[in-house]
């Protein structure tokens, strides 16, 4: 598991020294690989492909030339009948594959031997012998085949120089057949053995590569021929077309140069250089030297003024560019710092309103106008709601302590009780309750008597005003006993006057009779 970073780095900086060393080493390695690739024939890029194509065509051309030469030799020797030429070519191809010796060497050798022997079979035998000797001695096929050719024709010195193990005496005293037989014994199986070694395998690989190259070359030549119309004259046609194209290009270049020359003439307003179109300008001979000097001076002054203006404009342009660049740099720095700070703040625990504000700032910094306007709207709405809520809360009564108002009520009650206990208030005005005690005609208190400013009230309008309230208690009924007596007497009197009353204790009913 990858370990999380649990460190805070201060002053972090890229140390590119190691990278530069690595880059240098890599460049060296790349160069080495390229060289190695070039050495083993790996082609890189279009240039290499082109070179490979050229080499292929060249290989095919050489091979084709060697084959044609061999065919012509057979014809010249009177051996070109039937399928001899094809048989010889097939033999060479097979030999090439078996021994790893290129047909580029085998064909000239075969050609050489054919010219010496005039016999295909004999030439094939000698070619096989030459391959064995070449493999055994390390000499080239060309050297060996030339030596055998000369030996066949009677010159054995060259064969002796090959170091085949035959003395000069043996070579001079023996016939070619004897020498051939001896050499066949001495170098038997050398070519096959050599072909089976690693070196032989590489040679075979080279042969295969070369053949592939020749095949590709043939394909390219055929392709060119097809472009030229195909058939035997195809290549001729393409050559003619290339010639024509090169001539056309040359003509085009010449024409372009002429056109540029004419254009130059027109732009310089030297119309007179185009003959037959414009008349010659007035002769300068009419301008005196003084006038010419004045004109020259005026032209110089004009040029000076123009140069000054150009320099001023350039200076202003440069100053403006520097200012803009500085401003941009500053703005870029601010942007980076602010943006980083906002992004960091957005990651923290913040309220929705704060988040909206930060997102709006970020949108403004990044130039996202759509998002900015949207967020601004949301923020304004949110702010509006907040203000309304604040106003509403401000106007609400204080409901935090429901008993806070009790103190004033209790104070008021206490004051009333004190006032009642004292029996009046100081101040102006006197209100008196008149009439019988505890009765207002019917023997009971009338509550309206004590309501201030009630129409018909006993306290009258002056009750509201601060002052003294005097309650006079008068009459015969003062105590409870007196009240009971008064009620009893009243009942007796009523009974005696004929308006009796009946009280049923058990049922709790009362009735007047």
């Amino acid at each position, binding site marked *: 598991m990858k370990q999380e970073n*649990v460190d805070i*780095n*201060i*002053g972090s900086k890229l140390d590119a*020294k190691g990278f530069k060393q690595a880059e240098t080493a890599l460049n060296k390695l790349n160069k080495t690989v390229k060289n190695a690739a070039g050495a083993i024939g790996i082609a890189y890029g279009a240039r290499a492909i082109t070179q490979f194509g050229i080499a292929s065509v060249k290989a095919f051309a050489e091979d084709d030339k060697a084959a044609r030469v061999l065919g012509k030799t057979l014809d010249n020797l009177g051996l070109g009948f039937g399928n001899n030429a094809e048989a010889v070519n097939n033999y060479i191809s097979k030999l090439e594959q078996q021994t790893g010796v290129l047909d580029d060497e085998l064909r000239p050798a075969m050609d050489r031997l054919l010219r010496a022997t005039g016999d295909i079979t004999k030439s094939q035998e000698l070619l096989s012998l030459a391959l064995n000797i070449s493999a055994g001695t390390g000499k080239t096929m060309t050297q060996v085949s030339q030596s055998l050719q000369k030996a066949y024709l009677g010159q054995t010195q060259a064969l002796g120089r090959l170091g085949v193990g035959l003395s000069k005496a043996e070579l001079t005293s023996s016939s070619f057949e004897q020498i051939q037989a001896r050499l066949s014994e001495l170098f038997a199986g050398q070519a096959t053995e050599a072909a089976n070694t690693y070196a032989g395998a590489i040679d075979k690989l080279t042969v295969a590569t070369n053949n592939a190259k020749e095949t590709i070359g043939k394909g390219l030549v055929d392709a060119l021929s097809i472009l030229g119309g195909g058939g035997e004259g195809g290549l001729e046609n393409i050559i003619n077309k290339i010639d024509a194209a090169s001539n056309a290009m040359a003509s085009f270049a010449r024409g372009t140069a002429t056109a540029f020359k004419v254009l130059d003439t027109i732009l310089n307003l030297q119309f007179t250089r185009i003959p037959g179109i414009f008349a010659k300008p007035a002769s300068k001979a009419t301008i005196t030297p003084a006038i010419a000097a004045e004109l020259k001076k005026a032209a110089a002054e004009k040029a000076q003024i123009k140069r000054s203006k150009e320099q001023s404009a350039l200076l202003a342009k440069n100053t403006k560019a520097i200012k803009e660049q500085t401003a941009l740099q500053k703005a870029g720095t601010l942007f980076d710092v602010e943006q*980083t700070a906002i992004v960091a703040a957005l990651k923290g625990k913040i309220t929705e309103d704060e988040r909206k504000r930060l997102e709006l700032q970020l949108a403004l910094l990044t130039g996202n106008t759509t998002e900015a306007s949207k967020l601004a709207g949301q923020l304004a709405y949110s702010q509006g709601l907040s203000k309304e809520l604040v106003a509403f809360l401000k106007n609400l009564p204080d409901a935090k302590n429901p008993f806070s108002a009790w103190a004033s009520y209790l104070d008021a009650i206490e004051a009333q009780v004190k006032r009642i206990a004292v029996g009046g208030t100081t101040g102006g005005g006197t209100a008196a309750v008149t009439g019988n005690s505890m009765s207002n005609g019917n023997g009971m208190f009338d509550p309206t008597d004590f309501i201030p400013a009630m129409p018909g009230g006993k306290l009258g309008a002056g009750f509201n005003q601060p002052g003294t309230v005097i309650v006079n208690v008068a009459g015969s009924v003062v105590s409870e006993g007196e009240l009971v007596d008064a009620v009893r007497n009243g009942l007796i009197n009523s009974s005696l006057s004929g308006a009796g009353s009946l009280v049923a204790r058990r049922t709790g009913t009362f009735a007047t009779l």
Partner: protein
Amino acid sequence: MPVVELRGNIDLRKALRDFAPDLEKELKMELHKALRPVVRQAKSFVPAVSPMRGWAGRSYSEGRFPTYNAATVTAGITYSVSASKPNKNGFTSMARIINKSAIGAIYETSGRKNPNGQQWVGPTAGGYSKGVSRSNNPNAGKQFINNLPPLVSSLKGRGRLIYRAWAENKGLAEGVAMRAIDSARQQFYARSKTTTFSKAA
């Protein structure tokens, strides 16, 4: 006189050490001044007791998950004022605050990558064990993270100890440190123009 060019932090520190040891000493002192308060504050955020009863240290535990130990966490929070070796991307630093204990790292970063804990696969599932939870409790990771204080964001990353201290420092330490580094660099360049350096003993 050859032109002196210092490329990277290591070059600067080496040059200071070899040719201007007084500047090197001064720089180190300034860096100490800048980072010490942050480390002290970070240490103050380490809870004295385990945030979870089950995470507390015990006499024997067969589990490999380290148990909580406040002293270890506190001791692991430290700082360094020497230049670091290049990391895999080639970056070096002049100074750093480190939370180097395993428990401290767990406390610092739990929930930073997986806020609800790692993917639960259970104790019997086959396959790779790293990055997955093999607890019997499918919500073990989530519960563990929920029992820790919230992660605090700073400009250097999110965490509960050094990152929180860094966030609460509000860039003061970084400002002091950067000013000290710049000052040392400028003074070294200024000296290189006026004097010929010779390697200090």
